């Protein structure tokens, strides 16, 4: 016997970004909750609109099946006396399980005879156990932000106003936040006439559609995308459908109707970024472009309703965008009264991060850092000059009216570039300023120009260095300064440009610029977690390698190999990246890979503990046993091949591996024939030194001890 289940939480309009995550939680928690209750669901579907979080579950069993549980009691010897009469222990055990002593069973186990109780738990009707589940699931939903309302203490994303909970044709009697569940839902605010009574869960979608609501968000999304395309084409353009915006808009409407409005062409003189951001961030409009990809003075708005009075809605929206764009125009006119470069002095009055001086200090730090990078990276003198100028002006847009508008603040950098261009800076400088924050996230591209790369790298490293010195490194999921994004940016830029930059030196230079400030205010900030520069340097290096490890995982490099590669010295991220990819391929193709690792591991195992205590120096002429001499000869030859393979730009990691794998035979023979731990100390340390040299050779590629071998579990 099964019945469909419908659970709808009716709310005052949810924040659009909160709906999907809440639906996912509902689905997962109900799935596992029903399984725990032994109510097998056939199929769970979720629906979401701004005003409802809904779950439809097909074929939920109406009755929990009975279950039989067995409990182990005392040993038979303790449960019954010599005459076979039950003791207190047996009586107590039986009573505890709600049974008579006669119902107990005695069975042999490998620890002797024990008493067992077999208890049958009768299944309950689903209607009886569901209320608690629904209540606890609703209570367990987490949101980025919750609130209280009225006189209650219940917390939710927005006030709960109604609840529908049906199992088949029956109401599941649950109460959440003082709202009693029923069979009444509500349609679109203005397209429906009063409450909607549902007879059964399967009526849900249809009943709501009749009441002006498309509850299925997948379908609604398609409707929006399709309508937006059609409407734009009717106006001779193509809609730019940004995926995130589409998702957001989808959860702002219950019945979508797209319309195309227009604005004064003069606003197209504003930077395109500004126009697009005003449209999307402020008003959630989609931009429209012409055949050559240029912005048209049009926008697509998605109305929450049908097409009645659509012209009135269009005019209203046009009025708003006109005013918003007028604001942007006002900002720009005011901002451009001052050349971007003349804003430099104003940066003195803007704090960068508490304890890290002003933005002016930051601008001054970026110069030397860019210069250092420019020496390390293959860029021209011209590009270096450009980058230095861009670095100096990079933060000037932070004092503009445009960026002061919180909705437009995401344009930082790009506005700087635009204003630089319009106030007499060379195009290359403008572009480098505009690129400084790239990549802005996983979906963004790194800077395209060398000058942009230099500025972006320096800006990010300075930010990371400043925060680590202050002890503001990310913890757990909290990363308020977005340092992970910055670190990822550094990795992405270096890999994209294929620049070899000595990381420890880069980090050290960035830290030295800060520490060398005339008044190192950071020391006075007195933050509890502030770090001395040497420690910050180590943590930053590790932090960057963690990002690289993530990149490697995305490229399909197994985690153990990635760790093995990164545990070997990695002064240069590009080298580490290439090395890991190459070795991943070797591992797949070389059938002896594991055998070589095992041989190398023997070396590491024996020599590392010793090396931790004392220095070893190798005297080849003192080696006498043939196996030792053979290993040394092989090492000597292959080590040179390794160095040759890893020299210069085109590094052949596979060849280096080939060379190292030739050591496997000599290593094995050496350990078979020679006792490393000789009694004579000179002999012993010389043999250890040889083994250490071999370990070092492998460390040019990876730390063999970090590789998890197949069947490793069997060996343990």
């Amino acid at each position, binding site marked *: 016997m099964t019945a469909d289940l419908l659970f709808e939480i009716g709310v005052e309009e949810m924040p659009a970004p909160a709906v999907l995550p809440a639906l996912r939680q509902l689905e997962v928690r109900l799935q596992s909750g029903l399984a725990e209750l032994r109510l097998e669901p056939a199929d769970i579907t979720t629906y979401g609109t701004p005003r409802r979080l809904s779950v439809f579950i097909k074929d939920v069993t109406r009755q929990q099946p009975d279950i039989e549980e067995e409990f182990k009691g005392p040993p038979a010897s303790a449960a019954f006396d010599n005459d076979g009469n039950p003791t207190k222990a047996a009586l107590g055990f039986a009573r505890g399980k709600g049974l008579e002593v006669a119902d107990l069973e005695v069975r042999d186990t490998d620890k002797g005879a024990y008493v067992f109780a077999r208890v049958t738990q009768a299944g309950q009707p689903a209607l009886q156990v569901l209320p608690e589940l629904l209540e606890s699931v609703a209570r367990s939903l987490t949101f980025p932000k919750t609130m209280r309302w009225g006189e209650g203490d219940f917390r939710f994303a927005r006030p709960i*106003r109604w609840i529908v909970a049906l199992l088949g044709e029956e109401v599941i009697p649950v109460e959440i936040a003082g709202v009693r569940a029923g069979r009444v839902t509500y349609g679109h605010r203005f397209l429906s006439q009063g409450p909607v009574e549902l007879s059964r869960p399967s009526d849900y979608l249809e009943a709501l559609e009749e009441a002006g609501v498309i509850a299925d968000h997948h379908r609604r999304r398609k409707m929006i995308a399709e309508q937006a395309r059609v409407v734009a084409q009717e106006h001779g353009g193509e809609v730019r459908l940004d995926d995130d915006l589409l998702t957001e808009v989808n959860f702002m409407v219950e019945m979508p109707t797209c319309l195309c409005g227009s604005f004064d062409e003069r606003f197209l003189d504003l930077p395109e970024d500004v126009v697009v951001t005003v449209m999307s961030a402020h008003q959630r409009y989609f931009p429209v472009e012409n055949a050559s990809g240029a912005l048209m003075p049009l926008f697509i708005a998605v109305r929450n309703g049908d097409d009645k009075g659509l012209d009135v809605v269009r005019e209203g929206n046009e009025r708003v965008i006109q005013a918003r764009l007028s604001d942007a125009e006002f900002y720009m006119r005011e901002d451009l009264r001052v050349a971007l470069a003349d804003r430099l002095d104003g940066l003195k009055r803007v704090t960068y991060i508490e304890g890290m001086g002003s933005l002016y200090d930051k601008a001054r730090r970026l110069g030397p850092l860019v210069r250092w990078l420019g020496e390390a990276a293959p860029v021209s003198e011209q590009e270096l000059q450009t980058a230095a100028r861009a670095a100096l002006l990079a933060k000037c847009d932070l004092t503009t009216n445009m960026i002061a508008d919180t909705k437009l603040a995401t344009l930082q950098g790009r506005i700087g570039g635009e204003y630089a261009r319009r106030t007499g800076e060379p195009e290359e400088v403008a572009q480098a300023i505009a690129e400084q924050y790239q990549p802005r996230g996983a979906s963004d591209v790194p800077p395209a120009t060398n000058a942009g790369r230099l500025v972006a790298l320096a800006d990010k490293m300075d930010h990371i260095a400043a925060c680590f010195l202050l002890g503001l490194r990310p913890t757990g999921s909290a990363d308020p300064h977005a340092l992970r994004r910055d670190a990822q940016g550094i990795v992405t830029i270096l890999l994209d440009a294929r620049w070899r930059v000595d990381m420890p030196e880069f980090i050290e230079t960035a830290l030295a610029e800060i520490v060398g400030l005339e008044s190192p205010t950071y020391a006075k900030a007195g933050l509890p977690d502030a770090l001395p520069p040497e420690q910050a340097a180590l943590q930053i290096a590790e932090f960057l390698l963690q990002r690289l490890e993530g990149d490697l995982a995305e490229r399909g490099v197994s985690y153990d190999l990635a760790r093995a590669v990164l545990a070997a010295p990695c002064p240069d991220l590009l080298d580490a990246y290439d090395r890991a990819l190459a070795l991943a391929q070797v591992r797949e193709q070389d059938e002896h890979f594991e055998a070589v690792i095992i041989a190398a591991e023997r070396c590491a195992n024996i020599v590392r503990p010793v090396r931790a205590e004392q220095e070893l120096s190798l005297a080849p002429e003192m080696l006498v046993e043939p196996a030792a001499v053979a290993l040394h000869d092989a090492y000597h030859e292959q080590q040179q091949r390794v160095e040759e393979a890893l020299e210069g730009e085109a590094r052949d990691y596979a060849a280096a591996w080939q060379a190292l794998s030739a050591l496997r035979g000599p290593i094995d023979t050496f350990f078979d024939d020679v006792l490393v731990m000789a009694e004579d100390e000179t002999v012993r340390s010389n043999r250890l030194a040889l083994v250490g040299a071999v370990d070092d050779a492998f460390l040019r590629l990876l730390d063999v001890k970090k590789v998890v071998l197949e069947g490793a579990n069997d060996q343990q």
Partner: protein
Amino acid sequence: MVLQNMFQTLDAFWAERGCLLAEAYELEVGAGTMTPDTFLRSLGPEPWDVAYVQPCRRPTDSRYGENPNRFGRYFQYQVIMKPSPPSFQEMCLESIQALGIDPSIHDLRFVEDDWEAPTLGASGVGWEVWLDGMEICQYTYFQQVGGMACRPVTVELTYGPERLAMCLQDADDYRDLMWSDTVSYGEMRYEEEREYSHYNLEIANTEMLGKMFEMSEQEAREVTEAGFPLPAYDYVLKCSHLFNLLDARGALSVTERTAMIERVRDLASAVARAYVARREELGFPLLKAANESGLESPTYKRR
């Protein structure tokens, strides 16, 4: 509908729903929220339902009267209900309909916009109410005021009468709005916007403003300590407005700005605490009145 009729309509609407009709506060405020009838009354357990028009000043929004819908001085129609009734959102929509807006030919919706007033130590969760893409109201459930959690929760609805009037009168420029049947908003207020914009953005003597801030801060602190939160709060409001002027003049560095916000917030929080303590001393009179009316809930005034 002309502006003065809008105010009358809203007054009638909310009076019918149990709100008392108050008058505007006479000091400069950046928003209706800052007036004692909202800020102070939302504190503590006493029920409070009120509606009033409040002129507001935001010097940074000065545009010399040339921007079609942004002004340095404008109006808010403020509605407060504590505790927030379950049907408030419906009332909000009904009130908009009462103004003659037919939702079936418009696009009316609630768009997430949580609210925070750092100078008041206040924050809330809520929405902008959009009419055809234009924000016409703010609708907020207060969660914290003056650094104290709101129990019960106060709900605030703030209308932007000028914005609404632009829709109602189909005007593209505030200057064309009609206040009465014979006098336009521009005739009433354009010159004022122009002069104040020059003053706010260019003329105001920042040194003097700084001194006034210091003096007002000290007065607020001393009067709070003397046990008179109501007059003390006047000086908090003065501090807030002086801060806004300094901000509009671009006279504050980011650090100074943050520090000043903190100073005002500390004053506001101190006043809030003193106010609640005083109301408690008085035995929370409005709560008592509600209980004496024989109904269990303090929402006794509601029908």
